[in-house]
């Protein structure tokens, strides 16, 4: 005898109740899959119920078919949700198991440091390149004539005492300043203007190495030659430079001085970057730090460089890189730059 619609619907309900319980209770994705096969598979429970459909009277078939399909959809949804939940939990568990100590050091690429002197040189170069200056270099071993004579320092001039030199021969020496590059560049350029150059390089003096002296150190020289160049231009240029190197609030001060190759000449002080000008140990309580020598190019030097001093004028300035680096980084012994202690260099990795 064919099953009644009522009886089938009752069975359908009991299947629903059982399946819902079992799916909820499934602990693994595999168990969920087994339930899916059992209830929804081709030979599953729902397929079995559907097989009764043909036995039902025609008018009852749609209602029963809909009921089975509704249950199928409900179970599919529940199985899908249960599976997703179990997979999420499994993933979570696996990720937990993969926990590491994120505070352990990373694989060491251990970047090296640029030397502080290089960093200062390049910072200064960049400032002046931005102002339209070209970098020019010259030889470390120079002729006396470029190092002295063409810079208005004839032989037996008292100003030679300002720089005790390492001579190789009577006429050849290790340059005592980067100023000979000025001469070489002027000779190459004259009479064209404007000439705007920055000349970094090693210089050498017969000084005994101590905390403030080094027989070799680094200088950067600047030279501008053109029509109508004024001392106020020098002041304005150095003001710009000082602000960019030491900070916007930096001020400069010019004091009369003497260099044979400039006239007028000046020592240039900047407000102490350590105390901002109020006075501290770094600036010996003056609020000022002497960092540059400068002046208007001496007419004899222009002439020796191939220019007509009646037509053009110029300014020049020079600074000691070590001095700037000592101020900038608070180094109190110039020899430190040439010792290259790795423990010190490491602190310059960050630049």
């Amino acid at each position: 005898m064919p099953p009644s619609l009522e009886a089938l619907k009752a069975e359908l309900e009991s299947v629903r109740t059982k399946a819902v319980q079992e799916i909820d209770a499934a602990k693994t994705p595999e168990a969920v899959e087994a339930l899916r096969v059992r209830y929804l598979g081709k030979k599953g429970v729902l397929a079995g119920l559907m097989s009764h459909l043909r036995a039902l009277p025609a008018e009852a078939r749609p209602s029963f078919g809909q009921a089975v399909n509704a249950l199928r959809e409900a179970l599919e949804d529940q199985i899908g949700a249960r599976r997703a939940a179990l997979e999420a939990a499994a993933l979570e568990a696996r990720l937990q198991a993969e926990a590491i100590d994120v505070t352990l050091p990373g694989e060491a690429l251990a970047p090296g440091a640029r030397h502080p002197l290089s960093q200062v040189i390049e910072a200064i170069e960049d400032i002046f390149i931005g102002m339209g200056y070209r970098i020019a270099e010259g030889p470390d071993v120079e002729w006396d004539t470029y190092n002295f004579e063409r810079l208005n320092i004839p032989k037996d001039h008292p100003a030679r005492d300002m720089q005790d030199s390492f001579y190789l021969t009577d006429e050849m020496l290790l340059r005592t300043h980067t100023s000979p590059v000025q001469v070489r560049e002027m000779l190459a350029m004259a009479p064209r203007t404007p000439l705007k150059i920055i000349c970094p390089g090693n210089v050498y003096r017969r000084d005994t190495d101590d905390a403030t002296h080094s027989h070799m150190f680094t200088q950067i020289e600047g030279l501008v030659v053109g029509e109508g160049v004024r001392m106020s231009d020098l002041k304005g240029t150095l003001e710009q430079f000082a602000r960019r190197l030491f900070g916007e609030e930096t001020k400069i001060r010019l004091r009369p001085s003497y260099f044979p190759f400039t006239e007028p000449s000046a020592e240039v002080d900047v407000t102490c970057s350590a105390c901002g000008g109020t006075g501290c140990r770094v600036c010996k309580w003056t609020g000022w730090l002497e960092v540059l020598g400068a002046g208007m190019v001496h007419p004899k030097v222009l002439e020796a460089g191939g220019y007509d001093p009646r037509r053009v004028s110029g300014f020049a300035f020079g600074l000691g890189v070590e001095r700037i680096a000592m101020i900038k980084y608070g180094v109190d012994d110039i020899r430190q730059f040439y010792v290259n202690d790795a423990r010190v260099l490491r602190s310059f990795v960050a630049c």
Partner: protein
Amino acid sequence: MRVSWQWLSEWIDLGDMTPEALAERLTAAGVAVEQIIRRGEGIAGVLVARVLDVRAHPNADRLKVVTVETAFGGPTHTVVTGAPDVEAGAFYPYAAPGARLAGGVRIERQAFRGVVSEGMLCSAEELGMEVHLLSAEARSGLYRLPDDAPLGADAVGYLGLDDVVLELDLTPNRADCLSIIGVAYEAAAILDRPLRRAPEAAVGAPTGTEKAPGAPAVGEAAKDGGGASAFAVTVEDDDLCPLYLGQIISGIVHRPAPQWMQNRLLASGIRPINAVVDVTNYVMLEYGQPLHAFDADRIGTERIVVRRAKEGETLTTLDGKERLLTADDLVITDGVRPIGLAGVMGGEHTEVTPETRRIFLESAYFAGPAIRRTAVRFDLRSEASRRFEKGVDPLRVLSALKRAAELIAALAGGRVEGGVVGRQSERAAALFAPRRVEITRSAINARLGTALTQDEVLDVFRRLGFPYSVAVAEATVDAESGGERLANSEERVIVTVPTRRGDIAIAEDLIEEVARLVGYEAIPSTAPKLPETVGGRPPLVGARRSVAEHLAALGLHEVHTYVLVSEDDDRRFPRFDARTASALSVRQPMNAARRSLRRSLMPGLLEVAAYNRRHRVDSGRFFEIGKVFHPVSDEAPYGTLPDEPLHVAAVFYGHRPPVVGGRMRGGASEAGAYDYYAAKGVVEALLARYGLKADFVPAADLPGLHPSRAARVVLAGETACAPSRDGAQANGEPPVVLGWVGELNPSVAEAYELTRPAAFELSLTRLIAHRPPSAVYSAPPRFPGVRRDISFWIDRSITHADVLQVIRSAAEQLTIPLTDVVLFDVYEGDKSPSGKKSMAYALTFRHPERTLLEEEADAATSHIVRTLEQRLSIALRA
């Protein structure tokens, strides 16, 4: 230069100023005051006292009890002293109870072994005097005062201990400020106030009327003053000695200079000696004119001949040293032999001694450069030579002589005898002639960027005491600006520069005078009005920076080391880019370690490594980019400037940085020591960065390196990106050696206390010269490649380069391209047959126009393997 405030105040009224205020003004005007020294600071309550009697101390052998008075017949005080030489009747500084001495010592009534001392007698040191300038006698015991010292007077005032000294840090151009009078002129200009008196007025005329300084009539002067001199003066070299004057003074009594003069010498840092010598120093300090006193009785010829020394002549100078002279040296002679080194130091034979009764006092103008040459050569930089070198005021040659003669007469009991004798050359007239320098206000403003008025400009010259006149310039047509515009009809200022300012010769010098006296702060800040320029750096400078950044990113620290190294260190390392064998060195090194100009960066780098190793930095990687120096020719190494190629070099020592936490992650935990391959890896990275390919050619002949672990880095014919610009090798030119890489020879490493460091050195100059101009785009391959791995046993002596070469040549016979050969394993150990190693290569074949068939790749691989078997006897591994 040390300037006594009291002395300076005799020349200019400073009553309203503090030393600090003047110092600031002087410094701001370019005469830098380095230090303000207060003589005898804090000393008070010390009186001039006389010792009445000296008794033994009842309870102490080494002490004495003395009675002193501070007023004739006044109250007496008992003082205990330890000084053995205390003398009854002598005058001493006496610190009464309540007095303060040097170092803040306070003197009180105090008992010494049962005798109460009412204060103490003082030594020079206790008074804070410049003891290093005093004679041993004056320094050791009590400081004995002259017998004419004013009894009871405040010793602080009497000894000038209330004086203040301004120590000037003078630039070499300001020779004028090497004298009290010069500083007074400078202060007068800065403060805009007159001198108390003109220097000329200070010259009393001991031998009658004397023309104002500058009047060239020496002969006339001699006539005017007491007749002919006993001495005759001849000058044989007018260039080196344009003006030479002398004065005989007889009847000299040997005695010390008066206390006031000694005080000023001490304040000025000059050692008091005796009245005659002290006067010459005193007048030198005041006038800036060095003077010298010869013992006239020791110049038997009664002649002075000034001439160049003869080669080989000798002179024993005041310091007792015999000097071998050359024709460069100017000497004072007695007509036969030298008696003084002109302007530098007198001779011992004619030195003023206690026996001297008659002197020849010299005042001259010697040419600076010659004096400087002599002084430098003998390392005799005296107060006198310093002044001559920088130039003295010719106008003060005579006035200083007069002043000194007058003082010697007054203070050393002398008698000025006869007139001034001497010789003035034609050249001297040029020295005396005032220099006229022309300037206009607009030239000043144009150079300084200021807007000074004519009055402001003229005021500066007035303050300086520079006479000037003003003239209207003739209207001239300025052709440069088209011939239309009339050049300014501006007033020209014609400035007469006094001879005391020898540093001022051209208009720019006057511009500086104006600038410094109106103050540099009056100069505004402007931007140059120049055509636009594009800044930049030349290729080598740019490369230097990017190479440095690259190496730092690879973990190497950048260092800077000295160019001067020891000869031994310099010789030790390869000089791959030197065309010559010689080294350059400096003539007078500071020490042997800084003598030769480096030809390799290695000595400096190894010094750095050794330093760090000594300081327990167990491993390190350092690089330097710097110049080395190669003479251009061995025949004349110093004939031309040397080559200065830029090198980049690195040294590696100790262990590679471990992979941190590697052990915990089951990875490699033991980091190997740096070796050849560590250094080579960096070289390869660097070359790749610059698009260069190189061969690493085994080199057993590189000095300082391990003979079987070193290679020359030779530019390969073809670069990674594009052909090199000069295509050197293509033209059959010799290979370009870029440098070397290797481990150090253990014996050299040992010298630096390093264990097997590895290193490389390359010529950055060469690297950049052969660098391809730019990268060349290569499109991604359109068809997949086919990879075949081969591994085989091979004789261990065969190199990777050998294998590569065979593979490449075999590939040339193939119909399909071999695009890549990668060595991925080398094994040599227990499992390898004797004398063999295993190598494994990945070969990639790729056709540009189609997909390869597996069979094609197999056939190609077989061909390569066969070739390897035939040529290198490899045995394929299973």
